C-alpha cells in the first residue's frame, strides 16, 4: 500500500511540476474568462461605432428636420463629442453638395452623410452614404432617429406643445427574453444548459486528455525499461493503480483550479469588465447544489477509472506511439461517441433512445450529468446507472491489470486477439 502511494505520489508530483500542466491550468481559466468577457465586450462594441455622430446632414427639406435629427442623434458613444453638422441646401444644390462631402468622407474627416428631402418629410425615404454604411447598429440608430424626428415634427405641426412632444416620444425599450423549455419556463433554464454542456464537455476533455496521458506514460515506462525496475519492487497491479490514482488526482487538481477561477471570474467580473471599458452585465449563474456536485464528481471519478484502465491496457499492449494510436481507436471511438451524443441528449433528455444511451457504462460518465442537470432524474435511476458503471469499472480494471502485468515486459509485435486472450487467461 505504501508503494502504491509512492507510485501515485511520483505520478502526481512529476506531472503537476511539468510545464504543460501549468500552461494548461492557467490557459483554461483565461479561455473561460474570454468566453464570459468577450461576448459582453463585443455586445458593447457593437452598440454603435464611436464616430456614428461625426456626419453631415444635407437638409434639402426646407424645414428644420435636419436640426431635429442632429439634436436627437446627440454625441457618439464613449466620449466622442462630435455632433452631426447640418447643411441647408436647395434640391438643385444637392448633387454639388454631395460630391463635396463625399470628398471629405474619403479624406476621413467625416464618417458619412445623411440626405433628407421631401420624401423624408413624408416619412418614406432618407439616404445615407458613409464608411459605416454596413454597421447595422449605426444604421438602425440613424433610421430610428430620423423616424422619431419626423414624428415629432408632425406632432408639433398638429399643434402639440414642443416640450410635451419631446417628453412623450422619449421611449427606450429594452426587450428582455426568456426561454420556455420542456421543463417549463424559468430563468435558471439557461444556467442549467450551460452547466450540462460545460460539465459534460469538461469531463470529456479531462478523460480524453488524461486517458492519453496514462497511455503515453505506460508506453514510456515500457520503452525506457523502467517498468522492469519498478515491478521488481512493486506488484504490477499496484503500479497500475498508483498510476491511475496519481494521474486522476492531477486531473482533479486541474478541475479544481478551473472551477475556483471560474467562480472568481464570475464574482469579480465587474472590475475586469470596467478595465476593458465595458459595463457590467449579468451572467447566468447556475446554482449547482451539493448533491449535484457530488454526483458529477462521482461520475467523473468512475468514468476516469474506466477509461484510464482501458488506456493503460492498450499502452501495455504496444511498444510505440504509432501502434498506440491505432490500438486505442476502439476506446477513442467509445469516448467520442459519448461526446457526439451530448447535444442530442441536451435537446431531448427524455427520449427513450437518449435515455438508454446515457445508461451505457461507457457513455454514462458523460451523458448522465447532462441529463441530471437539465431534467430531474429519479434517484434510483442515478444509483442504478452508477452501479452499472462500477461493475464495468471492476471488470475493465481486472482485465486491464492482467493485460498490463503480461504486457509491460513484452516488446515487439502487438498481440493478436487470441494472444491477448491467452495473456488474460494466464497472466503470470
Amino acid at each position, binding site marked *: 500500500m505504501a508503494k502504491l502511494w509512492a507510485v501515485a505520489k511520483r505520478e502526481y508530483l*512529476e506531472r503537476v511540476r511539468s510545464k504543460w500542466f501549468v500552461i494548461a491550468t492557467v490557459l483554461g481559466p483565461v479561455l473561460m474568462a474570454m468566453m464570459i468577457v468577450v461576448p459582453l465586450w463585443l455586445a458593447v462594441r457593437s452598440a454603435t461605432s464611436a464616430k456614428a455622430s461625426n456626419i453631415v446632414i444635407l437638409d434639402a427639406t426646407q424645414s428644420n428636420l435636419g436640426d431635429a435629427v442632429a439634436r436627437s442623434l446627440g454625441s457618439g458613444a464613449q466620449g466622442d463629442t462630435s455632433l452631426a453638422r447640418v447643411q441647408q441646401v436647395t434640391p438643385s444644390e444637392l448633387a454639388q453638395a454631395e460630391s463635396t462631402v463625399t470628398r471629405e468622407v474619403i479624406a476621413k474627416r467625416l464618417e458619412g452623410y445623411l440626405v433628407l428631402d421631401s420624401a423624408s418629410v413624408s416619412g418614406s425615404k432618407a439616404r445615407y452614404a458613409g464608411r459605416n454604411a454596413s454597421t447595422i447598429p449605426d444604421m438602425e440608430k440613424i433610421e430610428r432617429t430620423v423616424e422619431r424626428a419626423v414624428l415629432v415634427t408632425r406632432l408639433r405641426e398638429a399643434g402639440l406643445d414642443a416640450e410635451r412632444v419631446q417628453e412623450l416620444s422619449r421611449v427606450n425599450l429594452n426587450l428582455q427574453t426568456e426561454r420556455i423549455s420542456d421543463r417549463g419556463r424559468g430563468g435558471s433554464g439557461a444556467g442549467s444548459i450551460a452547466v450540462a454542456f460545460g460539465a459534460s464537455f469538461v469531463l470529456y476533455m479531462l478523460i480524453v486528455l488524461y486517458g492519453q496521458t496514462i497511455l503515453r506514460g505506460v508506453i514510456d515506462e515500457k520503452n*525506457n*525499461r*523502467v517498468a522492469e525496475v519498478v515491478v521488481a519492487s512493486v506488484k504490477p497491479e499496484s503500479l497500475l493503480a498508483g498510476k491511475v490514482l496519481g494521474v486522476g488526482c492531477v486531473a482533479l487538481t486541474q478541475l479544481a483550479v478551473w472551477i475556483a477561477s471560474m467562480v472568481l471570474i464570475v464574482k469579480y467580473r465587474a472590475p475586469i469588465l470596467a478595465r476593458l471599458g465595458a459595463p457590467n452585465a449579468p451572467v447566468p449563474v447556475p446554482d449547482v447544489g451539493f448533491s449535484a456536485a457530488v454526483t458529477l464528481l462521482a461520475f467523473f471519478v468512475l468514468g476516469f477509472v474506466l477509461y484510464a484502465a482501458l488506456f493503460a491496457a492498450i499502452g501495455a499492449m504496444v511498444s510505440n506511439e504509432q501502434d498506440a494510436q491505432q490500438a486505442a481507436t476502439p476506446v477513442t471511438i467509445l469516448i467520442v461517441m459519448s461526446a457526439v451524443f451530448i447535444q442530442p441528449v441536451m435537446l431531448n433528455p427524455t427520449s427513450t433512445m437518449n435515455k438508454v444511451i446515457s445508461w451505457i457504462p461507457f457513455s454514462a460518465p458523460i451523458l448522465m450529468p447532462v441529463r441530471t442537470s437539465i431534467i430531474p432524474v429519479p434517484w434510483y435511476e442515478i444509483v442504478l446507472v452508477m452501479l452499472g458503471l462500477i461493475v464495468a469499472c471492476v471488470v475493465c480494471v481486472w482485465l486491464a491489470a492482467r493485460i498490463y502485468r503480461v504486457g509491460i515486459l513484452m516488446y515487439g509485435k502487438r498481440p493478436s486477439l487470441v494472444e491477448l486472450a491467452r495473456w488474460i487467461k494466464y497472466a503470470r
Partner: protein
Amino acid sequence: MAELALNIQSVVKRFAQHVAVRELSLQVPQGAVYGLLGPNGAGKTTTIRMILNIIMPDEGSIRVLGRPNTESKLLDRVGYLPEERGLYKKMQVRRLLRFLAELKGIGPREADRRIGPWLERLTLKTADKDWGLSKVDELSRGMQQKVQFIACLLHDPDVVILDEPFSGLDPINAQALKDTVIELKRRGKTILFSTHLMESAERMCDSVCIIARGEKVLDGSVAAVKSEHGIRHVAIAVSNHATDGVRALLDDTRMVKSVDDQNRFFEVELADGANPQELLRRVVALGVPIERFELIQPSLHQIFLDRVGAKGVEAGVTGHG
C-alpha cells in the same frame, strides 16, 4: 549450515514457443559472489526475473533468504540492476533515486541522507557540479549507469542481483564496479551476477553456474569446477618464426584434442590418454627456442567452451562440435 541466500529448486518456465528454463536448481550460499554464466539466450535473464518475482515459474520453487520469494516485503532486501537500464528520463536524478528507494521501503528523508554520499562516491557530485540536480536525460550514458547502480544499492540490500553488469562499461567503470562488488562481499552481502564474460567471472566469483538452453551444464565453486575438469591444458609459446613447426606438431590428433590459437601462445587441450611430457619432448625435438611450456588449469572460458560446445549449443565455436 547457514541458510541459503538463494535456493532455486527444479524451476521450469515455458513461453509460447519455447522452454526458456528447464529443471533448473541452484543454491547460492550467503555471502558468496555467484556467477550465472551462459551464452545469449540461455535463460539467464528469465531466471533472474523469476528470482525477483517479476515473472512466475511454471513449476518449481524459489526461496530468497529462506523464504518464498512471493512474500511481500521480502524483495525489499534484494537489489536489482537490470540488463537494460531503465530510468525515468524526465525526472531529476535525486527525485528518481528517492522514488526508487521508497519503492524498497526507505523513507524519503533516509533516502536523501544516503543519496549524497553515493553521488559523491561515484563522482556524480563534485565541487563544481551536482548531477543529482539534473534531469536523467541530461546525463551521459555512463552517468546514467551509475545512477542505475546507486538505485540498485541505495536500500542496502542483503542480496544484490546484477544482470550483465559489465556490458557497456568502460574499463574505469568496470573496475569501479568490481571494487564495489568486492566491498559488498566483505560486508557479508550476497551477489549474483549474470555474464557471458568469463574473464570477469573467473576473477570475481566464488562459485559459478553455467547454463545453456535453459539447462544447467555445471555448477560449483570455481576451484572445484576447475579441478574436476582436470589439467588437460598446456600453454606452448615459441619464438615467432618457429610457430609453423609447432602448428604442424599440434595437428596430431592422437596427442591433441583441440588447439586454441591465442596468437602469443597456443592453448592446447590434450587428447584422452595423451601424456603432456611426451608433447614436451616433441616440442624440444623441434629444436626451436621455447619461451613457455606450462601445464595450466583450464580457464572458465575453456571449460565453458568445452562443456557448452560439447552440448552442441554453440557448435562451431570450439572446432569440434
